């Protein structure tokens, strides 16, 4: 079943094209990696899907419903959640209350804090491995813990589709391994994932498919091992001619 469908999606900033004519489909239960060099348009695409930016042309369909131009909070309520490239915790709130906020506002709204919400928030902190920091102020967490918090807060909104923006950027190999475990755990919860991954340290290992962008255009899509041998992708990343061409 199709979860997300992008139809000829374009975005221009003051006449400069950031994304042009992106057509793409994500199916339920998939993990899709969004790759491409700096400035390829990965974060712009995220901002379009999550409602932070309005597309210049084109359509975004979520579960068949046209959500083009929806505001971020409305997009979240429908079931799309995201993390941020540099995490954005609610600094002067406790870790638990950060997650609780997602739990309370992600879908409906209740005026009173329900015990089951608090329970769920604790569980999510456990899932991402920072349950022992529940009462710490978010500002006092380490950077890796803040990324985990970002993830827990996004999960707390009970998304069907989760957009992860560079969750593992700058992570050591050990942390990347943990991140892979975490992502698989998220998938087991029935969440479809779209992962922005500039350095490819995550998506090559967990993604079912990759979508490669360069200069705002889709240059390839397909399984990771095939994409990684795609000449357009190699050229975009490495800036050199495909070895076979040398022989021509």
């Amino acid at each position, binding site marked *: 079943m199709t979860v997300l469908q992008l139809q000829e999606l374009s975005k221009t900033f003051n006449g400069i094209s950031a994304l042009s004519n992106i057509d793409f489909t994500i199916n339920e239960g998939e993990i899709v990696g969004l790759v491409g060099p700096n400035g390829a348009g990965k974060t712009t695409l995220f901002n379009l899907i999550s409602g932070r930016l309005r597309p210049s042309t084109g359509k975004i369909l979520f579960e068949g419903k046209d959500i083009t131009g929806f505001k*971020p*909070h409305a997009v979240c309520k429908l079931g799309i959640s995201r993390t*941020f490239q540099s995490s954005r915790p609610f600094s002067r709130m406790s870790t638990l*209350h950060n997650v609780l906020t997602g739990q309370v506002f992600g879908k409906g709204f209740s*005026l009173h804090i329900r015990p089951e919400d608090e329970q769920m928030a604790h569980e999510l902190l456990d899932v991402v491995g920072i349950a022992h920091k529940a009462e710490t102020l978010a500002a006092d967490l380490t950077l890796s813990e803040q990324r985990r918090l970002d993830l827990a807060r996004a999960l707390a909104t009970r998304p069907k589709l989760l957009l992860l923006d560079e969750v593992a950027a700058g992570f050591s190999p050990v942390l990347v391994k943990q991140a892979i475990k975490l992502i698989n755990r998220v998938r087991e919860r029935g969440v479809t994932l779209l992962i922005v991954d500039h350095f490819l340290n995550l998506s090559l290992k967990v993604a079912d498919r990759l979508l490669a962008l360069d200069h705002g255009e889709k240059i390839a899509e397909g399984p990771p091992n095939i994409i990684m041998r795609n000449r357009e992708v190699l050229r975009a990343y490495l800036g050199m001619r495909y070895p076979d061409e040398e022989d021509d």
Partner: protein
Amino acid sequence: MSFFASKNTKLNTRGLKFDSVGLVTGLVLLIILPALVKSNNYILQVFTHALLLANLALAWNILGVSGSISLGHAAFFGAGAYCSAVLSLEYGLSSWLTIPLAGLLAAGLGLIMNLICLRLRGAYFALATLAFVEIPRVITDNWDELTHGSLGLVSLPGLPSLSLGTWSVDFSASIMASYYFVFAFSLVLLGLVRFLFNSNLGLAFQAIREEEIAAEAVGISANRYRLLSLLLSAFFTGVSGACYAHLVRYIEPGLVYGLHFSAIPMIFAICGGRFTILGPAMAALIIYPLDQFVFHPLLPAGHEFLYGVVLILTVLFLPAGFWGSLRKIF
């Protein structure tokens, strides 16, 4: 420090206990104050004003908690004062009716302020609110038939009276009665602020203060909740203005729209602790009497320098406010 209540932490439990102790002590002292000072009219009058300013600070902080620093609350205060004064003086309405109507008018003004300042944040928002005060002030100043312009309005009806069966009390009859009237308003407002901040609305207000983009990403409509906090804040500031009008029974535009009533709640809220429930009210109840009893006799012309000094010292040494800092220690 987060003011938000949570039951299962050492840090917060201590803060909460400290809050309860402070609250109970404060309330008991305020209740028995008239007996303590043997109904000394001057002292009671000062504390009546201190309570009124505490209400102003509590109301200001409803907006403050969601991250907006307003320098324009005199707009709501003045509009509330004039609304209640005109309605009761010219149309003879009971102040039981005109005081809440004053709150509604102020909230309406808050709606207009929200439309103008919707996209502004931080210092830009603060400056726009500072300028915003001019709108109701100029209208009041020039609408002579209704407000008598800069002449002001005199001999306003006093605070209302309450009768239940055979028992009745006139809140304008004595200073002690007025004192208890304002005190009752403080209790209602404090209860409401506690309820708001400890409910999930408190989470939303804090979240949009801390990180607006992330708040929207978890399903919070930042504009809607910011508007809600502004409307509530404006409403209770308007009600405070109306109380002021009936308490002092004399108002003029320069007074009720003055910078004084914009700056004072902000100073108390910041000194007491913007992220605490009790801090702003505590600061009003300590600093204002200190000003009136100690500094005013010493320096009749420049006693208000105290507010500047206290504000600077707080920002430099106790950024969490004195109540916020004390909560962390105890």
